[in-house]
């Protein structure tokens, strides 16, 4: 793509030095994208790589990506979780080329049968001593010096995160107390995976992350949400933003709404539709399961992890960038291991709300593409993100873009902008 604006050659490249203005080249520029993969995903960030429930036993593994970096996450003999680059030290082939599985003690690259233990150490080289004393690796070849890059891992409430950087702070410090508390609120006991789907989105990965953090749009774009009082900005709620700006949790409080409120009607907003009723309201048959009044909580961890509680519909989502204009959104729906059959059925029905066909989330699949196409010739223009001011602190309203600005605060920090 030919972008006239080269971000690195421009002094004061971030317009007005404000997180309330974002230049559109960040969604288009190839060099910027390469820099993101290196500085954001492979930088001092924790990246979601799998659920502990995905790899309960020794030798269980999953493959995933940290940005563009392919990784293997595996449970070792001591119950620990290791993560290393899914790249053979020999010629660079993928070591594992399935979504996951279980192995005995070693991964073996199919290309030349070099093998790796569950920590990612190179353990075996086929014909290392040659055949009948001829060929083979040089006598002074130091096998220990070669292995795929290893990532540090950490677990939190059944989530597994990995980082390539030795400098990433512990996950508790990385998230801050408020966000940590909101993760613990939902993931308070062993979970059970209920299904996986991938949504291929025609937009830059950041447009989706912004959308997740954007509390302002939810009841304006999503009619289903608004009409059924799942969330409306006039309901109680707010948004928490971590001190570094990168992580957020938005929430809605389930309390009786003032029936006289006319805020939406006064704005002439499309989501106000009194006639729209469900023929089968069992879809929204909700039980309070977290001991509080929060009926909806959307939480993000910088750069690309989302934990979602919409009523009893629970999911984690992972953002996987695929170039400047495409990304994959990997959904994992889950419940808890101790769910009753009734609770499982309730979750199965409420899962209609989310995912690629979700009543309240399908629009998020297309709106990023509308931006990506809308800005096609606007690399030197900026978006305006000023709802609720120009700062990034937590706010007791969702008519704000504080957490979107928070994202840009963290992004600029990691990118050195």
């Amino acid at each position, binding site marked *: 793509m030919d972008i006239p604006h080269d971000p690195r050659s421009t002094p004061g490249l971030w317009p007005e030095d404000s997180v309330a203005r974002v230049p559109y080249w960040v969604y288009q520029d190839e060099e910027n994208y390469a820099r993101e993969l290196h500085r954001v995903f492979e930088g001092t960030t924790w990246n979601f790589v799998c659920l502990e429930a995905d790899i309960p036993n020794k030798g269980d593994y999953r493959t995933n990506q940290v940005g563009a970096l392919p990784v293997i996450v595996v449970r070792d003999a001591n119950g620990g979780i290791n993560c290393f680059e899914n790249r053979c030290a020999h010629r660079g082939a993928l070591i594992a080329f399935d979504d996951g599985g279980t192995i005995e003690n070693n991964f073996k690259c199919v290309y030349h049968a070099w093998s790796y233990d569950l920590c990612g150490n190179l353990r075996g080289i086929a014909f290392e001593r040659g055949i009948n004393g001829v060929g083979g690796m040089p006598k002074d070849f130091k096998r220990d010096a070669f292995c795929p890059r290893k990532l540090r891992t950490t677990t939190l409430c059944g989530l597994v995160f990995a980082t390539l950087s030795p400098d990433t702070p512990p996950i508790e410090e990385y998230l801050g107390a408020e966000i940590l508390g909101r993760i613990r609120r939902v993931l308070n006991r062993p979970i059970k995976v209920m*299904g*996986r789907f991938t949504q291929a989105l025609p937009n830059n990965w950041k447009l989706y992350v912004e959308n997740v953090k954007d509390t302002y749009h939810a009841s304006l774009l999503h009619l289903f949400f608004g009409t059924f009082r799942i969330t409306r900005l006039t309901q109680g709620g707010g948004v928490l933003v971590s001190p570094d700006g990168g992580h957020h949790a938005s929430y809605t409080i389930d309390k009786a709404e003032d029936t006289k409120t006319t805020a939406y009607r006064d704005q002439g907003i499309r989501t106000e539709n009194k006639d729209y009723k469900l023929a089968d309201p*069992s879809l929204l048959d909700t039980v309070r399961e977290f001991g509080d009044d929060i009926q909806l909580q959307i939480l993000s961890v910088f750069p690309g992890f989302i934990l979602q509680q919409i009523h009893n519909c629970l999911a984690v989502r992972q953002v996987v960038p695929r170039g400047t204009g495409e990304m994959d959104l990997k959904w994992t729906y889950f419940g808890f291991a101790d769910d009753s059959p009734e609770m499982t059925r309730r979750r199965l029905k409420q899962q*209609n709300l989310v995912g690629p066909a979700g009543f309240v989330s399908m629009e998020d699949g*297309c709106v990023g593409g509308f931006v990506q196409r809308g800005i096609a010739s606007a690399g030197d223009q900026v978006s305006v993100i000023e709802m609720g001011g120009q700062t990034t602190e937590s706010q007791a309203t969702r008519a704000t873009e504080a957490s979107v600005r928070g994202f840009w605060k963290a992004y600029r920090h990691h990118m050195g902008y």
Partner: protein
Amino acid sequence: MDVSRLVDLNAAYARAIDTEKFEDWPGFFRDSCLYKVTTVDNVARGLEAGLIYADSRAMLQDRISALRQANIYERQRYRHIVGLPTILESRNGTADVETPFLIVRIMRDGKMEVFATGCYRDKVVTEDDGDLRFAERVVVCDGSRFDTLVAIPF
């Protein structure tokens, strides 16, 4: 159960969706039913969740209400190519049937592309009025990666 009646049923089902007569779609199901869109991977792993999950005809009607009145998406339509049904088991007017399908999605800009392929795993029943309806239609998609969004049912 006569295969030709199943072929007719599938043809009418596909035609209703492809000609955007979505209001007719719930009528292909029994009042109490299961309609689910899932993937080969989820089925193989015993994972129950669906992209779409409905256990009543009323829930299917709600899908159509949302499609018509609530959800926002770029104009698009489908072309179903439905293969021949295989009857796995048939007795007392009820049959377990598998039928392969291919869906081409036609977008506003004119692009035609394969959107989904898979297999319908059905339980078809003969109702009191003599019509065939789905007691179950589990749409098992071959792949698990869905482009942009799924607004229209499969």
